[in-house]
């Protein structure tokens, strides 16, 4: 029959691979490492020559040694653990609230009209301006820090989730109606997966803001955490320790971002977009 033949040829023309074979992207890793490697090399050379002061600018080698020392004494793991707990808690509360409220606001116009103007207004207030209030109200304890981080993590998640929901193809809602999706199915089977690209972007931004707010909270007053460690080292001009704190922030920040990016690649495999 003609149909069968035509269908076969149509199928033969397009071999479908569900999972493209992926090897580790060495090339792109090397490309990304060029600039940092060059900076480290120049820095080390300059401080070894005595061209720049080691006390003031430190050197990669000294920083590495300091890493070793601080890990051996258990100081670094201790501070890092406390910082990680604070940032994660803040991200979970703030990001979670942002996701939930963003979803509700996105799905219902009346809710949007009630909630969104207030949130947008609050969003423009610089976090540093609120920090003194938080310290007055909640003290120097963990609560004020976690709340500050939550507040920072809330907005990017909220804005992106809201945007993601509003970007859902309206035509798919008719499909949901024909397939008799109830409210729950419409949310979990239609809105959430469709808004996922934006939600993941919100997660990344939210994570980095959580990290940023953590530093603010810990620099302003804390007895522990990586931020405190930096602040403490600064008063004794221990540049090496300051650099350890800074680099650990960079490393953990990059790591958390990478985790979300891996998640993005796995969850958004269905997307048909330009990959450069």
């Amino acid at each position: 029959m003609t149909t069968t033949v035509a269908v076969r040829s149509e199928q033969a023309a397009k071999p479908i691979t569900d999972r493209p074979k992926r090897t580790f992207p060495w090339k792109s890793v090397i490309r990304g490492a060029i600039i940092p490697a060059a900076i480290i090399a120049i820095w080390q050379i300059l401080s070894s020559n005595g061209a720049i002061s080691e006390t003031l600018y430190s050197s990669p080698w000294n920083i590495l040694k300091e890493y070793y020392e601080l890990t051996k004494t258990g100081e670094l793991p201790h501070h890092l653990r406390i910082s990680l707990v604070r940032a994660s808690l803040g991200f979970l509360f703030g990001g979670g609230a942002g996701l939930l409220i963003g979803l509700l606001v996105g799905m219902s116009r009346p809710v949007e009209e009630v909630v969104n103007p207030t949130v947008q207004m609050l969003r423009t207030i610089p976090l540093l301006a609120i920090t003194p209030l938080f310290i007055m109200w909640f003290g120097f304890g963990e609560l004020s820090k976690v709340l500050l981080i939550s507040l920072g993590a809330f907005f990017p998640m909220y804005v992106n989730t809201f945007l993601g929901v509003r970007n859902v193809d309206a035509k798919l809602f008719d499909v949901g109606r024909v397939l008799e999706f109830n409210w729950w199915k419409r949310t979990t089977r239609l809105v959430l997966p469709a808004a996922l690209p934006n939600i993941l972007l919100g997660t990344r931004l939210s994570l980095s803001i959580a990290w940023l707010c953590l530093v603010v909270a810990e620099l302003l007053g804390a007895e522990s955490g990586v931020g405190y460690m930096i602040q403490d080292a600064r008063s004794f001009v221990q540049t090496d320790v300051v650099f350890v704190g800074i680099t650990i922030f960079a490393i953990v920040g990059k790591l958390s971002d990478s985790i979300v990016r891996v998640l993005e690649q796995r969850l958004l495999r269905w997307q048909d977009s330009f990959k450069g």
Partner: protein
Amino acid sequence: MTTTTKALLEIDNVSKIFRNGASTTHVLDRLSLNATEGDFVTVIGPSGCGKSTLLKIIAGLDTDYVGSVNIENRKVDRPSQEKGFIFQEHRLFPWLNVESNIAADLSLSKPEVRERVNELIKLVKLEGFEKAYPRQISGGMSQRVAIARALLRKPKVLLLDEPFGALDAFTRAHLQEALLEIWQTNRTTMVLVTHDIDEAVFLSSRVVVMDAKPGRIKSVIPIDLPYPRKRTGTAFQDLRTHVLRSLEHSETEEPSYTI
């Protein structure tokens, strides 16, 4: 045609008025139409005759009308799975692969769903593409997935809104044959909206010709040709001409241009 069997779908005196500011348009005007079980009805007419609106009303997607629509003596007041709907675009969920799209909200880990999905994949000839994502397959294949998704719900009636309109001529012809096969296998009642006369005569047991402004039925032409039909046969061409005449007649009634 089986006139003795009770009508499955009854459309009785349906009118719909579209208001835009001060002007009102009679999209549908006292339209009545029945379809029995296993019927293949095609609605054809000039653009703006309300044929797509009629389909949306039958589907329960549009409830703003006067008159009544019943399926098995129950009033249609909302969309449901007993009224399968195929849109002009496939409207698959881009994040689900072919088999998950067919299952949609049902779980493929349930053996009865799994079995039905496999059967339907065979029926729409998509074996080997179960794991492909919509972006990886052609428009014709996507539309077949959409048909399988609707059929999985065992609809009493399948409503098709210009389903092959956006496809190229070859794919369209293949899909028409595929649809006939599905219809002959499942005996699902079909209501198809199209502007393609060939498609109407090739597929249906009855062609309903509609008139625009106000949207009403101009004539109902039974197509008593045995399947499979030959598009080149004289009987086919005669019926084609008949439908065309009926359509042209309806279109000359409105002033075409004012200069």
